[in-house]
């Protein structure tokens, strides 16, 4: 073969348009939402989320299919505290030991679904389930309600088509559940096949009572600047396992939180979001991002992000916008 023709083909400048990546991620997130939650109601605030909201939605949406998590879950008997390795794999290590062990089972249409464990704090509610046979997951028609019949909106999750282990993440329980705990009822009317094959209709109703991990407000760090944009902290709170930071960004950066930067060099470098927030402990170990969202529809951008923490002490929160600026603030977890 002619080397010169091969070289010319390999050297063809075929640069991917900058907007394509976001189009793909956005479309995939929308598709997942439609497929997974035909009865799921999106929270009102989520409908206006564009930038960070998109990122978080995509990340959590994609986690539905994370096979690595599935491998770890497959190795762990999912009862009691033995879910620890699985939680670590899912980035929920700090929640280990915080789960309430549940054991509610239902069988319908030849499928057994078991509610294994649950966790809740002021920012999220996490349920661990097992579906048997494992070829379907609990992301079909699934509705979580509390003792008052109020629906708790779904926000993400992970499932394993080989073991049947599912982790479903819902929004925070409303008051007074947040004070009293909640008697939860999870009703599933359709199990969905991984990859969008034929769903299985049935009637699975699972119940369990969990308390809400108390959180405490922490002192607000001083505002910071990203170029001409102001970043204000509106709320910082922590449980013994998580820390949540609420930000408000005013200025040019507020409308460009979804911008991606950096070259694409296969196997070497990949584009990344210009805006970033990272929480690092005193030893330089980054905390795992658990959840979050944001809105850039109009006016200041509202952002919140939650990390899993494993110990008290000082953490450095670094807010950055590549090419514009960055700053750090210390958050002390008592």
């Amino acid at each position, binding site marked *: *073969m*002619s080397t*010169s*023709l*091969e070289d*010319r*083909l*390999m050297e*063809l*400048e*075929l*640069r*991917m*348009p900058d907007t*394509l*990546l976001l*189009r*793909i*991620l956005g*479309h*995939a*997130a929308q*598709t*997942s939402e439609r*497929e997974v939650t035909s009865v799921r109601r999106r929270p009102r605030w989520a409908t206006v989320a564009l930038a960070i909201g998109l*990122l978080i939605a*995509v*990340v959590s*949406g*994609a*986690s*539905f*299919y*994370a*096979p*690595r*998590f599935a*491998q770890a879950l497959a190795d762990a008997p999912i009862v009691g505290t033995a879910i620890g390795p699985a939680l670590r*794999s899912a980035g929920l290590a700090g929640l280990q030991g915080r789960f309430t062990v549940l054991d509610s089972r239902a069988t319908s249409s030849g499928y057994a679904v078991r509610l294994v464990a649950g966790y809740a704090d002021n920012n999220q509610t996490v349920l661990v389930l097992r579906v048997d046979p494992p070829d379907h*997951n609990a992301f079909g028609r699934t509705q979580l309600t509390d003792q008052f019949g109020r629906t708790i909106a779904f926000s993400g999750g992970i*499932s394993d*088509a*080989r073991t049947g282990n599912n982790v479903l993440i819902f929004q925070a329980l409303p008051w007074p559940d947040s004070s009293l705990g909640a008697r939860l009822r999870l009703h599933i009317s359709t199990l969905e096949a*991984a*990859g*969008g094959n034929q769903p299985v209709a049935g009637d699975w109703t699972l119940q369990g009572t969990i308390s809400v991990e108390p959180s405490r407000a922490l002192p607000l760090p001083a505002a910071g600047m990203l170029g001409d944009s102001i970043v204000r902290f509106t709320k910082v709170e922590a449980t013994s396992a998580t820390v949540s930071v609420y930000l408000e960004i005013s200025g040019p950066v507020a409308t460009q939180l979804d911008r991606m930067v950096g070259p*694409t060099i*296969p*196997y070497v470098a*990949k*584009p*990344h979001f210009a805006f970033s927030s990272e929480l690092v402990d005193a030893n330089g170990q980054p905390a795992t991002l658990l959840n979050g969202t944001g809105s850039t529809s109009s006016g200041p951008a509202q952002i919140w992000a939650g990390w899993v923490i494993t110990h008290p002490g000082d953490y450095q929160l670094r807010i950055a916008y590549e090419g514009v600026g960055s700053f750090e603030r210390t958050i002390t977890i008592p």
Partner: protein
Amino acid sequence: MDAPDEWPLTAERLCARYAPRVYRFAAMVAAGDVEAEDLAQDAMVRAIRNLGRFDTRRGSVETWLWRIVVNAAIDAGRVSTRRRRLWERFRSQPATAENVEDLALMRITAAELLTAVRRLRPRERGMIALRFGAGLGFADVGAAYGISPAAATMATRRALDTLRTLLKETR
């Protein structure tokens, strides 16, 4: 096997690592730039939707992903076949040129080369695009089409020969 930093394999990571190469593939096999973007998007969304089906015991991410990408291209090709045939019927007849490949290659522009690639038959285009657009080895090219590495090598060689002929006609 895949690099550890790919795990867990999320949509974001899949896109960051593979979307540019999928786009290069799409740009070569699609009829135009707009179609290339649509194809790349469709292929990547299909891959993301099927992340749950990926099984490390059955092969690498590369093999799994490019099968999906090729199938998306084949499906897209079915949709656009009628339009392409019409275009091919009405395009001007190519002129003959001197048989001095290197000189010809030096003279043709990147746009002309890409146009020539896009005039190949779908399977030929796919082979060229996987090998030189996505940068796959012949084993992966073969895996994407369900043929052996040797067969992929031969098919790619034939596609290159056809491309040479088209380029000569162009000049």
